[in-house]
């Protein structure tokens, strides 16, 4: 990971809400925690020592329950809320030290924001709403019309430009909100629980749209959410916040397989983990069941039901019933004993797609890497154990 690929980096950011943040900061430095500060000074610690970086072109989801500081965090990026201490860099430029004028410029050119409540202007038409950011930046009327219309058609609202927000459904209103943010062509798109106020079907549709738009434009998106399903569906990486702290950052898989604490694990309770896990995450290798074939007849210990025959390069040759080989078999007989007729399962095949295969086959399903090397097997019991653990 080089510096160039980091578009936004956050270092030791704190935010204390209250009249005397310095007092709280001193207490924090001396090891006081959030509750102690609230009891002694009445001040609320919104964000506590957050450091992370966002890569160019990724969807970075910040997740947490309400009160975890995620909405505060996103407002620190464009300084709608001033951080108490720490630094934020966007494209190598320090946001935290900008003058008002420079900050206004960054907000106009570099950042677009989408809000949970849509926050459209009721007195403006859809077109004017979409062109709002451009108008504020002083773009000429002709150009802002063109760009706003383009943004509206990107979000699928072509033809609605003369409507007014109150005439649109919630989903369409949020599309206008998205178009307003996209019309500026921002370097980074901040989305604060943008889809939380929509009903589930529309939400899922909007998530799909967002994924499509991101894939087309390779835009960096920071998405705030409290919904694990949403975070996993759209996020390349997820940061989990608890009580103002960032407790873990990683890909959905990393979080699911190695949760940092119970809080992170609790998020995945009731989540269908087969949609995140890959076959490679689950497969286990039992040496007793593997036999390297090099000229002589393969054999397995008693009690091993099925055997996996591999060559010198670990390429899987065949899955066999170990009992059939007890009497000793010639190498050429192996072809006749071969059991595996199913499509190959690779380490990055989603677990979701493996379920049927595992259920249908009598033997544990072999998992290969893309070079064809045998990596392990998934048995029915292993699969059930995995599913019930997560």
């Amino acid at each position: 990971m080089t510096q160039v690929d980091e578009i936004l980096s956050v270092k030791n950011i704190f935010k204390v809400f209250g009249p005397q943040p310095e007092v709280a900061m001193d207490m924090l430095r001396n090891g006081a925690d959030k509750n102690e500060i609230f009891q002694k000074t009445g001040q609320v610690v919104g964000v506590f020592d957050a450091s992370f970086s966002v890569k160019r072109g990724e969807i970075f989801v910040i997740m947490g329950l309400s009160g975890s500081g995620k909405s505060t965090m996103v407002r620190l990026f464009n300084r709608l809320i001033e951080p108490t201490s720490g630094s934020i860099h966007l494209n190598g430029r320090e946001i935290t030290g900008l003058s008002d004028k420079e900050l206004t410029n960054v907000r106009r050119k570099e950042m677009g924001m989408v809000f949970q409540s849509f926050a459209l202007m009721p007195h403006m038409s859809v077109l004017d709403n979409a062109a709002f950011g451009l108008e504020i930046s002083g773009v000429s009327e002709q150009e802002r019309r063109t760009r706003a219309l383009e943004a509206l058609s990107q979000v699928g609202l072509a033809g609605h430009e003369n409507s007014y927000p109150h005439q649109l459904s919630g989903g369409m209103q949020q599309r206008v909100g998205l178009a307003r943010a996209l019309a500026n062509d921002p370097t980074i798109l901040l989305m604060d629980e943008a889809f939380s106020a929509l009903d589930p079907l529309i939400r899922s549709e909007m998530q799909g749209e967002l994924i499509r738009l991101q894939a087309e434009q390779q835009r960096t998106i920071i998405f705030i959410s409290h919904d694990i399903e949403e975070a996993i569906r759209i996020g390349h990486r997820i940061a989990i916040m608890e009580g103002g702290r960032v407790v873990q950052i990683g890909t959905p898989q990393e979080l699911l397989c190695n949760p940092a604490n119970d809080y992170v694990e609790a998020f995945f309770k009731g989540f269908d983990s087969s949609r995140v896990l890959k076959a490679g995450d689950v497969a286990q290798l039992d040496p007793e069941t593997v036999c390297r074939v090099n000229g002589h007849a393969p054999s397995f210990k008693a009690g091993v039901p099925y055997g996996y025959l591999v060559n010198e390069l670990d390429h899987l040759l065949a899955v066999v019933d170990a009992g059939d080989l007890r009497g000793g078999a010639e190498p050429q007989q192996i072809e006749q004993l071969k059991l595996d007729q199913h499509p190959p399962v690779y380490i990055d095949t989603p677990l979701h797609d493996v379920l049927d295969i595992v259920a249908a086959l009598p033997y544990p399903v072999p998992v290969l890497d893309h070079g064809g090397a045998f990596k392990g097997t998934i048995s029915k019991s292993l699969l059930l154990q995995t599913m019930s653990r997560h």
Partner: protein
Amino acid sequence: MSEFSILDPFQTMTIPLGDWVENTLNYLVHNFREFFRAIRWPIDQVLNGFEFILQSIPPSIGILLSSLLGWQVAGPRMGWLCAITLTLLGLIGVWSESMTTLALVLTSVFFCALIGVPLGILSARSDRLEKVVRPLLDAMQTLPAFVYLVPVVMLFGIGNVPGVLVTIVFAVPPLVRLTNLGIRQVPDDKIEAARAFGCTPWQMLKRVQLPLAAPTIMAGVNQTLMLSLSMVVIASMISVGGLGQMVLRGIGRLDMGLATVGGVGLVLLAIFLDRLTQAMGERTSGDPSLRWYHSGPVGLVLRLLGSRPASVKAEA
């Protein structure tokens, strides 16, 4: 002098507020009279302008124009209401006096808007200013008008201009209050969105706060109008003309007929102005997709022209 008594300390301990005011006023009158006279000038110009226009329009044309305005603003029923109230004013023989009063009221509303809206905006921005302005507005609304009629006469003389001045003092508070309220009530998420897109404070005011506060501000204008109308009668004590003068003369001579005619004239004028400004306020809070030129007589004319769109475009 009696002895100081703890039980009734106010025998000896008093603040000579009355003397102070009198001394200050005398000082101001002797030294700054010219300055106060100068304040009269802009009010005089605006008032004369309004009065000249209103008095020079013949009544029937005036009724027609206001009816069309009413129709445009709030539909044909409003047009009829305007026509009826104004015709009645003419029929009871107070047209000219009504126009004088209307000019006074419009001038006062004009200056109220000039002072009140910016003051309301400023106090919406600063809690500290609001704390200072609030008791001042309370005083302006509750202090009996007679108390400041005398100093106004001493400083500004008598006539229509000082009349407008006392009217402004009495009528400006609701506009300040409602402008302040309207701007403070603009939803936070709209403000936040505007900030996130890089609005300067001025852009915020112009593009977000004022449009969203417009219905409340219009309610303030309506209140200011009504208060101006009621103040015009009291102001007639310092020789302000119009309907108030009729009422005052009627009372002075125990001529109930004259007083009633003046009073009814004021009521008709009040109904006319109130409904019209209320309708304007409802417009601003109504459906923004309906443009004002899509309805009423202008809409009608445009539709008639619209039957030949090619020629309209060619002219443009």
